[in-house]
C-alpha cells in the first residue's frame, strides 16, 4: 500500500511537469567527448549514448578515419595521395583513391556553379600567399602571374571510375575548402553505422555536423560567427551541417596582411567585410558552399543559393548588415530585444546537376 502511494505521488509529480522538463530529467545516457588533431585543426566528437564503451569505440574509429583521410588529402605531407597526384597527374592519367575522386568531383560542381570563383586548382596561389602569412615577402606580380597560369578547374579531367589527369604542367589541387567537410561526413557515416544517434561533430569550428539531437532537446544549438557582435545569430541543427568562412583578420601591426582565401580570377587574397555561415544536409556541401559564397559575395551568392535545395546562407558584415538566402534551416538572431526567427528566402529551383541532387534530403 505504501509502495502504491509512493508510485502515485511520483506519477502526479511527473504529470505536473511540462514536457520539456520531463525530457530533461536525468537519463542513463551520458557523453563521450574525444578530440584529435588532423587537417591542421582539432576534430572533436561529442556522443550521448547509454552504452559508453560503444560510444567511445565509435568516436575512436571515426577519428581514426579522419586521420586516414588527412594522410590521403594533405598537401603538407609529401607522401599523401593528393601530393602524389599533384606531382604526377600532369604527365598521364593516374589512379586515385575513391574518396579523393569523390571530393574532387563534388568540388568541380561548385567550381562550375560559381563560374570558377571556387576552384580547387588554386593550390599554387595558396602556397604563394601562405608563405607570406608565415613571414615571407609579398609575392611579386611576376610570381602571381606565374601561379595564375596554373589555375583553372577546366584543366582537371576526371576519368571514371577512379582516374584523373591535369591538362596543365603546373597544376596543384588544394582541398582546404572541402576536405574537412568530407571528413566530417565520413565521421557521421561511421557513427551511424555504429548505432550512434546523438552526436555533435566539429572540425575546428568551421564545419559542424549534428547527428540527431542532444538528450532533452529537439536539435543542437550552434551560435554563429558574427563580426558585428550585434546579431547573435544561432542555428538549430539536426541531421545537417553548418560551415562558417571568413577572411583572415587584417594585421594589428599595420602593413599588409594577406588573407588565406584567394580569388582564383585575380590571384590575390579576397577583400571582404563579411563572415558567412551556410547550412546544408551534408558537411561537404556546407564546407564548399561557405567558401564559394564568401568568394561570390551576397549579390551573386544569393543567386547561386536559389538554385539549391535545403541550403541556407547568412552573410554578416562588421556593421551588422545581414543578407539571407536559401530554403534550408532557419537562423535565429538573438541580438535584439527578443529572438527573431529569420527564415531565408524560399526559392525552389530544380537542381541543375547530378551533384546538386545530393543537396536534396
Amino acid at each position: 500500500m505504501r509502495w502504491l502511494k509512493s508510485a502515485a505521488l511520483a506519477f502526479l509529480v511527473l504529470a505536473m511537469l511540462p514536457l520539456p522538463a520531463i525530457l530533461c530529467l536525468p537519463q542513463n545516457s551520458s557523453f563521450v567527448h574525444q578530440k584529435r588533431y588532423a587537417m591542421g585543426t582539432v576534430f572533436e566528437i561529442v556522443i550521448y549514448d547509454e552504452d559508453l564503451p560503444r560510444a567511445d569505440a565509435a568516436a575512436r574509429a571515426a577519428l581514426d578515419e579522419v586521420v586516414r583521410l588527412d594522410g590521403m588529402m594533405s598537401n603538407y605531407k609529401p607522401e599523401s595521395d593528393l601530393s602524389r597526384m599533384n606531382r604526377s597527374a600532369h604527365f598521364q592519367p593516374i589512379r586515385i583513391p575513391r574518396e579523393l575522386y569523390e571530393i574532387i568531383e563534388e568540388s568541380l560542381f561548385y567550381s562550375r556553379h560559381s563560374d570558377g570563383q571556387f576552384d580547387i586548382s588554386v593550390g599554387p596561389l595558396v602556397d604563394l600567399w601562405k608563405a607570406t602569412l608565415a613571414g615571407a615577402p609579398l609575392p611579386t606580380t611576376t610570381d602571381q602571374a606565374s601561379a595564375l597560369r596554373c589555375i583553372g578547374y577546366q584543366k582537371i579531367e576526371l576519368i571514371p571510375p577512379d582516374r584523373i589527369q591535369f591538362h596543365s604542367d603546373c597544376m596543384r589541387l588544394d582541398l582546404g575548402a572541402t576536405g574537412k567537410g568530407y571528413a566530417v561526413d565520413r565521421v557521421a557515416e561511421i557513427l551511424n553505422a555504429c548505432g550512434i544517434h546523438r552526436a555533435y561533430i566539429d572540425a575546428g569550428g568551421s564545419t559542424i555536423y549534428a547527428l540527431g539531437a542532444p538528450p532533452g532537446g529537439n536539435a543542437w544549438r550552434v551560435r554563429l560567427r558574427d563580426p558585428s557582435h550585434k546579431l547573435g545569430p544561432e542555428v538549430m541543427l539536426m541531421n545537417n551541417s553548418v560551415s562558417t568562412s571568413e577572411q583572415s583578420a587584417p594585421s594589428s601591426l599595420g602593413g599588409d596582411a594577406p588573407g588565406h582565401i584567394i580569388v582564383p580570377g585575380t590571384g590575390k587574397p579576397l577583400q571582404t567585410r563579411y563572415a558567412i555561415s551556410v547550412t546544408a544536409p551534408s558537411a561537404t556541401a556546407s564546407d564548399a558552399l561557405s567558401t564559394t559564397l564568401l568568394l561570390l559575395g551576397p549579390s551573386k551568392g544569393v543567386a547561386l543559393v536559389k538554385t539549391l535545395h535545403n541550403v541556407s546562407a547568412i552573410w554578416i558584415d562588421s556593421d551588422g548588415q545581414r543578407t539571407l538566402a536559401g530554403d534550408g534551416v532557419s537562423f535565429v538572431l538573438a541580438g535584439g530585444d527578443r529572438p527573431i526567427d529569420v527564415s531565408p528566402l524560399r526559392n525552389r529551383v530544380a537542381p541543375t546537376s547530378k551533384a546538386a541532387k545530393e543537396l536534396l534530403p
Partner: protein
Amino acid sequence: MSRMSILCMLFLGSIAACTPVTAKVLLRVEPSPLPPADKTGIQDVVLLWPLRDLSAAAKLRSQGYRVFLQCESKDLAAAVVAAERAAVTGIIVANTARSSQPAALEPLRPYFAAHKSLTFRVLVPGGKQPQMKGRLVVERDGVLQVSSASSQPWLDTNLALVRLAQSMDPDSLPILYDFHWDTSGGLPDTWRPDAEAYEVAIAEADANRSDVTIDLPGSLQKALAADDSRAWMLWKGIMPYLDFSSHAQTERMLPVVNLGVIVEDAQASYEAINLMARHNLAFESVRPSDLTLARLSSWNSVVVFCPLNKEAVALLRNFAASGRIVIFVNTQDKFPWHSAPPLRQESGATVYSIGAGQVVELAEPVVDPENFARDLHRLIGRERSALTLWNSITTLVTGYHEQGGLDITLYLVNYADQPDNVQVQVKGRFARVRLESPEEPCCVSLPFVERGGFTEFMIPTLRITARVHLDSARESSAAP
C-alpha cells in the same frame, strides 16, 4: 591569474633565488602506501601539509624518496617544525596567490635563513595542464560553441609562465610550478589522466628547463601499491619519459632568442606573451630595469608592454636605427621620433621609420593575442627568426646554449595526440645534428642542409618529445 598572484610570484621568485636545484619531476602523493623509488623511477615526492601522521614521511624516506612537505605560507612555522622532526628534504611553499600583499610574505625569509637543513622551494602559481585543447564546452544536455573560420589547435602550455617568472628574477632557476589535472571525459573504468598526459607534462617541464609537481591520483597510487597490472602498464609507459628528462643537461643554459619582451606587469600582458610562446616566437622577457645594451645585443626585435624611462627609450631608438624592430603596445607616450611624420598610420597602429629599422606604436592593449602573435611572426619574418618550425602547429620548440657556447640544444614538445613530422630551421651553421627521444636513445644523426645562414632538418616522427643537439663545427670533433 590575478594581479596579486603575479606580484606574489615575483616576490617569491626572489626568495627562491637562494635555493638550490633539486629535481625536475616531483610527485605529489597521498600519505598512503607507494611502491619504492627504484620501482617508480621518481626521486622526489610531496606530501600536503597538514599531515596527520608524520610516519608517512618516514616510510617514504625509507623507500628511497626525498620527501617535501607542501604548505601554505601561513602554515610555514608548523610545517618547518614537523619537517625537521620528520627529517624530510624540504618545504614547498604554495598558495601565495591568496596572500593579501607581497610584503606579508616578508616574515617567511627568517625561516629560510634559520633552517639550513631544509631546502625551501616556492611554487609559482598559475600553472595549467599542458595539452592540446578542443573548442567545445560540453554540458549534460548539449554543447556550447560559436562557429568560426577554421581555427588552429589551442595549446595550454606553461612556457610563458616560466619565462615570465624567470625574468622577474633571473637567478631563481629552476622555476617550480604545478597544475591540476583535467579528468573529464574519460570512461568510468579508465585511468584519468592517461599515460600521454603525464608524458607531455614531464616533457614540457624538461623543455622549459623547470621543475614541475605532478599529482598522482589516489586511485592510481593505491593500484600501484597493490601491484595492479593495469596501473603498472600505465606507469611503465611514463617511466621512459622520466628517465629521458633526467638525462637532460643540468648546467645553466641560456635560451636561444631573437625577440625581447619588456614587461613590468606580467598579468596585464600575460595572454599576449602566452600566445607568443604558443606561436614559437623565440623570446625572453625582462623587466625595464634589466634592459641593457648587452641584453639588446642578442635580440633583433623587441615588444614593449610598459612605460620606459628616457635612457631605455634612447637604447631602443638606437636599436631600431640599426635595422631592428621595436613595438610599443598600449602607448600614448611622446617619443623623440615623433618629430618626423610616420611612415604609415592605420587603425590603432602607427609605424615610424628610424634609420634602417622601424618602430610600431599600438595605441591600445592587445585585444586579440592570437592575431597579435601571428602578426608579430610575420613582421619579424623567417630571416630574423632564430628558430622556425614549418607546418607543425601542435609542436613547441625551445633552444638553449651555454654562455658563450656555439652548440645549441633544441627541446621539442608535441602537444597533440598524433605524431608530428617536424621541419626545423635554426639560425647558424652546424657540423652535426643529432636527435634523441624517449623512443630513440642518444643519438641518431639527422641529415641537414645549410641555406642562407640557416640549418634545416626534419624530424620524421615526433611522438611527444625530442632533444636535438646542433654541434658547432669547432666542437664537433670532440663530441662523442
